[in-house]
């Protein structure tokens, strides 16, 4: 009785959703603790019953970096804007790793939690959002290795890294979340997304200058590649941390604009499909 008299309960009106759904960010704020718990659970469960535990967050990008260094540097001798290939590729592998995790986990998040979706009300946006945030933990761990590599190869970032890096990290999150919003909502109805993801990831990887340098590409390729929002992210990371490349130029702004477009359209698409999730999943 005491609990009840404390506050006047609010009245909710449940009615058919019509037209463009409002984003309803207020509900998202009310449920913010759930995002925390979902991320916490994902991270906790991910490395349970593994021998090496959190070390995997380091091993994966480091192994990738070593393979790339061998293939693209020692064998193929790709140009790298005069930077040690180890640092050059690892700097790009960090945001790329975050993007891939977010893309894969985020796209599957609704279907993976279908028992939650069909049984309880909560803002559905929480599922892709927490998948993306869970990737940040791995990112933070791998980032420590990057700092080590930069010290080892004597690379000093400029002072403005303090604000440019967070901005590019934000851009990575927006890009990953935008794509995850689209794909997770489509995946509810068409599981083709599950089949397409491995191929999509691979294709996207080669269309992003992770293993190679953007600036040494012929100009016509540069134009095509800047339509890929991850190009902006990877170039931005290299510029912020290593001073490589051109810095914020037209190509970067094109990438940013596309990221924002995907993100905002993804938000609205997700919200408009949200009301059918429980019925079609």
């Amino acid at each position: 009785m005491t609990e009840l008299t404390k506050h006047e309960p609010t009245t909710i009106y449940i009615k058919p959703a019509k037209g463009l759904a409002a984003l309803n960010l207020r509900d998202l704020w009310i449920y913010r603790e759930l995002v925390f718990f979902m991320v916490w659970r994902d991270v906790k469960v991910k490395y349970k019953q593994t021998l090496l535990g959190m070390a995997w967050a380091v091993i994966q990008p480091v192994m990738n970096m070593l393979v790339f260094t061998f293939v693209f540097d020692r064998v193929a001798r790709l140009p790298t804007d005069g930077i040690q290939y180890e640092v050059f590729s690892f700097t790009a592998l960090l945001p790329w790793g975050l993007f891939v995790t977010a893309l894969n986990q985020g796209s599957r998040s609704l279907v993976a939690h279908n028992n939650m979706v069909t049984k309880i009300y909560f803002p559905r946006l929480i599922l892709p959002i927490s998948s993306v945030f869970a990737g940040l933990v791995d990112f933070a761990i791998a980032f420590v290795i990057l700092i080590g590599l930069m010290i080892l190869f004597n690379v000093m970032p400029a002072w403005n890294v303090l604000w440019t890096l967070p901005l590019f990290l934000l851009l990575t999150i927006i890009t990953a979340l935008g794509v995850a919003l689209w794909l997770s909502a489509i995946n509810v109805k068409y599981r083709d997304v599950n089949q397409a993801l491995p191929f999509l990831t691979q294709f996207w990887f080669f269309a992003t200058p992770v293993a190679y340098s953007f600036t040494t590409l012929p100009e016509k390729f540069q134009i095509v590649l800047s339509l890929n929002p991850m190009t902006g992210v990877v170039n931005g990371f290299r510029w912020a941390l290593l001073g490589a490349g051109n810095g914020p130029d037209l190509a970067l702004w094109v990438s940013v604009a596309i990221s924002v477009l995907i993100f905002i359209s993804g938000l609205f698409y997700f919200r408009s499909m949200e009301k059918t999730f429980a019925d079609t999943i």
Partner: protein
Amino acid sequence: MTIAISAKNIGKKYQIGAAETKFRYNMLRDVLVDTVYAPVRLAKALIGKSDRRSNQNFVWALKDISFDVAEGQVLGIVGRNGAGKSTLLKILSRVTDPTEGTVAVRGRVGSLLEVGTGFHPELTGRENIYMNGAILGMKRAEIDKKFDEMVEFSEVAQFIDTPVKRYSSGMYLRLAFAVAAHLEPEILVVDEVLAVGDAEFQRKCLGKMGDVAQQGRTVLFVSHNMSAILRLTQEAIVLKKGQLIKRAPTPEAVDFYLSSGQAETGEHIWTPDEIPLNSAPFKPIALRLKDKTGKVVDTVRSTEPVTVEWEYQLEAPLTGLRMGLYLSTMRGEYVFTAFDTDDAKQYEQFGARQAGRYMSCCEIPADFFNEGRYSLGVNASSFGVRRYFMDENALSFNVDISGAPGTQWPELRQGPIRPRLDWKIEKLD
């Protein structure tokens, strides 16, 4: 009197896919044809033109439902399977939107349909309490405050730091229920949880529900257990095929429900609209009750054996199939559950069945039933894989006990069965 829930003309339309039944993959040819047409389907999906012919393929799971629930009222909801009870609860708990109409809900809705949702087997009991609590919309501070109470209620204190994958199913369920039960919503929705757990635990659940009602919270209670409905609610609504057909004080509503809508012919033949589309490739045909002369009967003599025949069709081969029979009293208490492949030898022979028409039948021996009315439910499932079809109330019948043991005394005997026991009486001195 404050109104807690006010539903006005709500309806829910479900699209049922013809696309799913269109391609059946019986033959390699179908698979190839399907593959060739894939680009066409993709193109159609992208321009928003669905593969299925719309307009015709939908059903109204709920139509034109209006009712008010006063704050602090405990309302029972009864109805057969597919009557729309679950859809109604889903709308009230905001899982899905109604197609038409509005509901005004005053306060937080907590439902016990989601016990254990979000539980992760790798996490410990403690971690799962926090996780599940957050999913149900509790604040962290709120969970902290009620944590000890929940652990005590669940009776798993000893294992609270053990991953729940090591729990027995009973422990798992108790823990899950403990979290849901401490949510303290203004409106509590309870759906069929009482069908699970041991008797002692069920008693606790009902007690908790009673407490909630005592505190002046509103409770919606859905169950097939009529005695629980009678005990816990004062008023009930009856749903039939998506429509609200009766609202009355509980005893009257339960009487109405029990005496209406039940076929009394001793035979249930499933019509196409009674078979959910997702039950394919399984298709129920008929359930019959026959006396020892082979006549279909709706009244069974307790002193004679009775044969239950279940006829069905498999459109495709199925493995691990078992056809279940659930016998219960009309008050919803189970008498027994049995499967046609309970016997290991039978399972070896019929676990995997080719497509075709089948009949599973069994005999319920003489001197089994007590006087009264019973209900037969059926289901078809592959254990741990999928439940194809289920009808919890496929057939009901009366039992006549003339000639049964003890009928020389005209009195009501307790209990659902009335066995003829082999009594030995001897004088000891």
